[in-house]
């Protein structure tokens, strides 16, 4: 990440105590804020946590690392009072405790910042923070509480307008509200459950700054993640889980290599360098000309975007989230109308055509939102896999759907794409994120696309699944497909792309080729500087 060395703004001179909701502050001599010992959690058919030990020192950031399904969230749900362990002991500040509900955990100063925010969109920041508290009782003296919240904000450097409604503020700000919520309830231990999954790079920076400010003032943090570079940037110690067991407990972070951590997580060596064969790109397949479109909020999202992608080429779109990436993908795939401009695929005019036209023209789409757009959760794997090909032989013959050939097709893909599930009749909502993404990928690739629009194809997946999905994309590139890769992981873009186009405020700031990737330049373009401005000697416009 560019600038991961940036240090937090540390508001020095503030008392190291939280003035609001001070409860159970029975400080003991124990250097540990939390000690978990021999924790066992059984789910039907799974041992989610198998005699796990975990300790959290006061004032440290302890990263909890592991693949999806390794048991990280389960362990932390115990600490947050959401699950009761089948056996094991839990100590907070040296005292043995049992939690029957999240309320008990909060009373002990433990708060969780959930990955999916639990906020009421139509209410203000202050109202959301106060929600569920015994105070205020009847009269809602909002200004008084707004002042309290502002004090808390200045103490930890968490700026967000207390009067703003949740729907008006950005995702990063919403996360700050979640953090404020736990702080307001007197949390000394904060659990961050994959907090960066929803954030843009700049917001991740800010979050890391916030986390540093929090520990500087004596808070302790558990940071659940599977992104190695973030863990590197922020953690003091790490604990690695694999399949419910601890593979490394409380190692100091200094001196660990990324390769070592990945090995602990996955249990084998992981290749970070993506081997990419040089293939000469063919003719331009996808052409976008002066594309303009409006966002859901009614604001201009694309403002005259032009781009061409050739056969056998991966073009990466870099940019801070919300600069038109989602709208760009939707305009190409027919899910969003274009206000003006043109989309053509191999000569076929697709501007403002229905989604079916794009599908028939050979545009595959790996959507950003796997569960809400990319799949039908209560239908089977088979039903989800035939979603794009049920109209054609041999699966769709005229008015019927041929069950046997659909099942055969699904079984073939399950085998070929290594989808882990009991059978093709499994409902896709039962699948893990990685396996669901493989279902979507299998479907989109077997459609023999001319163009693939891949939006955040590896977001939230574990190292093993990321590797598999990147390899599939590279294979498609070799097969001559034009690929538009939208990602917020700059590392991924750099590893996979032949060219990177940087998008800012709905326009392309510049396109750079693989031989000239430069993090500094890309970073500046992401914040709105044009490439041609950057490359003139004195920063003047040409």
């Amino acid at each position, binding site marked *: 990440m560019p600038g991961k060395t940036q240090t937090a703004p540390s508001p020095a001179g503030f008392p190291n105590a939280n003035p609001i909701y001070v409860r159970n502050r029975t400080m003991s001599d124990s250097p540990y804020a939390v000690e978990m010992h021999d924790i066992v959690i059984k789910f039907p058919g799974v041992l989610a946590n198998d005699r796990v030990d975990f300790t959290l020192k006061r004032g440290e950031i302890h990263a909890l690392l592991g693949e999806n399904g390794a048991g990280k969230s389960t362990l932390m749900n115990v600490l947050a009072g959401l699950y009761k362990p089948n056996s094991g002991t839990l100590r907070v500040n040296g005292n043995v405790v*049992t939690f029957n509900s999240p309320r008990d955990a909060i009373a002990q100063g433990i708060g969780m910042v959930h990955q999916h925010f639990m906020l009421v969109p139509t209410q203000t920041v202050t109202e959301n923070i106060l929600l569920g508290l015994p105070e205020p009782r009847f009269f809602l003296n909002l200004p008084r509480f707004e002042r309290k919240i502002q004090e808390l904000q200045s103490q930890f450097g968490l700026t967000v307008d207390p009067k703003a409604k949740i729907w008006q503020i950005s995702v990063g700000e919403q996360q700050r509200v979640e953090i404020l919520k736990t702080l307001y309830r007197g949390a000394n231990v904060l659990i961050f459950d994959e907090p960066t999954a929803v954030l843009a790079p700049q917001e991740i920076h800010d979050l890391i700054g916030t986390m540093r400010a929090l520990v500087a003032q004596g808070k302790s943090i558990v940071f659940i993640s599977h992104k190695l570079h973030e863990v590197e940037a922020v953690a003091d110690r790490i604990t690695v889980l694999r399949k419910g067991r601890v593979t490394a407990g409380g190692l100091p972070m200094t001196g660990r290599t990324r390769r070592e951590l990945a090995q602990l997580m996955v249990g084998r060596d992981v290749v970070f360098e993506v081997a990419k064969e040089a293939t000469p790109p063919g003719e331009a397949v996808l052409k976008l000309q002066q594309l303009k479109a409006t966002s859901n909020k009614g604001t201009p999202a694309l403002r005259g975007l032009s781009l061409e992608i050739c056969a056998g080429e991966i073009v990466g779109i870099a940019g801070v989230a919300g600069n038109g990436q989602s709208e760009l993908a939707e305009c190409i795939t027919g899910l969003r109308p274009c206000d003006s401009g043109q989309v053509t695929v191999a000569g076929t005019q697709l501007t403002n055509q229905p989604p079916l036209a794009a599908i028939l023209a050979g545009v595959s789409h790996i959507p950003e939102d796997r569960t809400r757009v990319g*799949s039908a959760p209560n239908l089977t794997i088979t039903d989800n896999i035939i*979603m794009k090909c049920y109209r054609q032989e041999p699966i769709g013959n005229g008015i019927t759907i041929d069950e046997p050939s659909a099942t055969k097709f699904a079984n073939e893909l399950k085998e070929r794409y290594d989808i882990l599930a009991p059978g093709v009749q499994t409902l896709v909502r039962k699948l893990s994120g990685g396996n669901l993404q493989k279902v979507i990928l299998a479907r989109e690739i077997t459609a023999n696309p001319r163009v693939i629009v891949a939006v955040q194809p590896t977001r939230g997946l574990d190292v093993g699944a990321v590797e598999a999905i990147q390899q599939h994309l590279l294979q498609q590139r070799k097969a001559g497909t034009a690929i538009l890769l939208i990602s917020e992981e700059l590392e991924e873009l750099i590893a996979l792309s032949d060219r990177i186009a940087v998008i800012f405020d709905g326009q392309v700031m510049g396109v750079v080729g693989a031989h000239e990737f430069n993090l500094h330049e890309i970073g500046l373009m992401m914040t709105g500087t044009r490439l041609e401005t950057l490359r003139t000697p004195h920063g003047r416009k040409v």
Partner: protein
Amino acid sequence: MWLLPPARVVSAAKAMINLPFTLLVEKRTEEVPRWLPAATSVGSVVLAFVVSGIVLAAIGANPLQVYGFFARATFGSWAAFSDTLVKATPLILVGLACSVAFKMKLWNIGAEGQFYIGAFFASLVVLVPLLPTDSSPWLMIPAMMAMGMLGGALWGFLPGLLKARFQVNEIITTLMLNYVAVLWNNFWIFDRWSDAGFQMTPTFGRNSWLPRLSDYAREYPLFSGLTLHLGVFFGLFAAAAVWWILQRSRWGYEIRLIGDNPQAARYAGVSIARNVIWVMMLSGALAGLAGMAEISGVVHRLQERISPGYGFTGIIVAWLAKLHPLGVILVSILFGALIVASREVQPSGIAQMIQGFVLFAVISSDVLLRYKIRLVRAAPQPAGPPGEFA
């Protein structure tokens, strides 16, 4: 069911009354066994009868005697069973109409109106008359079926079009169109087609009657007095057709896809607007056919109150049947029996009470599909309220 208290609340409530066991309510994490939904439905019907029996006992009746009487009146003889099926026929068709729409999460509350318009359109064949009054039944009846389905489909098309084009909430439009349909019918039977001032049309000619079993009493003496008409086969055939459409056809796949996730359907290139219109029309056509079957098979004329709320009962039938066509047939027969039974016992509300209990029991039995409830021996309670140091 969404208000179900978590496990700890149940055990806390238990602590107050101090039983030697505790109820553990756990969310199901694994797949529900295939037989379970059917088993809970049957179990809840049984439970509803048990609870109703207690009520009957409380008011001084012998529940077993009452149920015995019910059984005889509804299934006790061929004649009784035939009556039950006659009442079940419109429920099957209307229940299917609702199931199809609900499968796509399209809330068609307008089956009642589609039923009436179906009856009206079918009547046009006889009353206008669209066909010569002495036409062969082989011509008359298919024409009435087609008109009935056309009328119902039209009454489904209007809200479907509004929903597809302007996102008008179909619950409101279908509900309102019910009243329009009933009043429209009233205008014709009170004014234009009134039979000697009564609120009904003259009886239709026999060539427009659906054949009944009793028509064949001469050849088969067993059929004498049986009122069962051909409409029941419309119901059975429609159930098979609906099953086939939903489970085997391309259209049905699109309906299921939209029902589960409209965004994914759009992404897969399915036109939601077109499907909204077509599904509303299919739903309306089935309800319209029910209206046709009722006037052509039972009342033999158009009159007021041809439906004692079949269109609304159909919603309940669809729901209790979990939108499954075979379930619709079974639930319709049960509800048909309750309608027949209500004519046989006093007060007639007894049957409606049972119907109410069935509804409650089946809907609340959904809890068993989402949660596992186990009875476990109580562990010694930790001292102090939960949350303190143990």
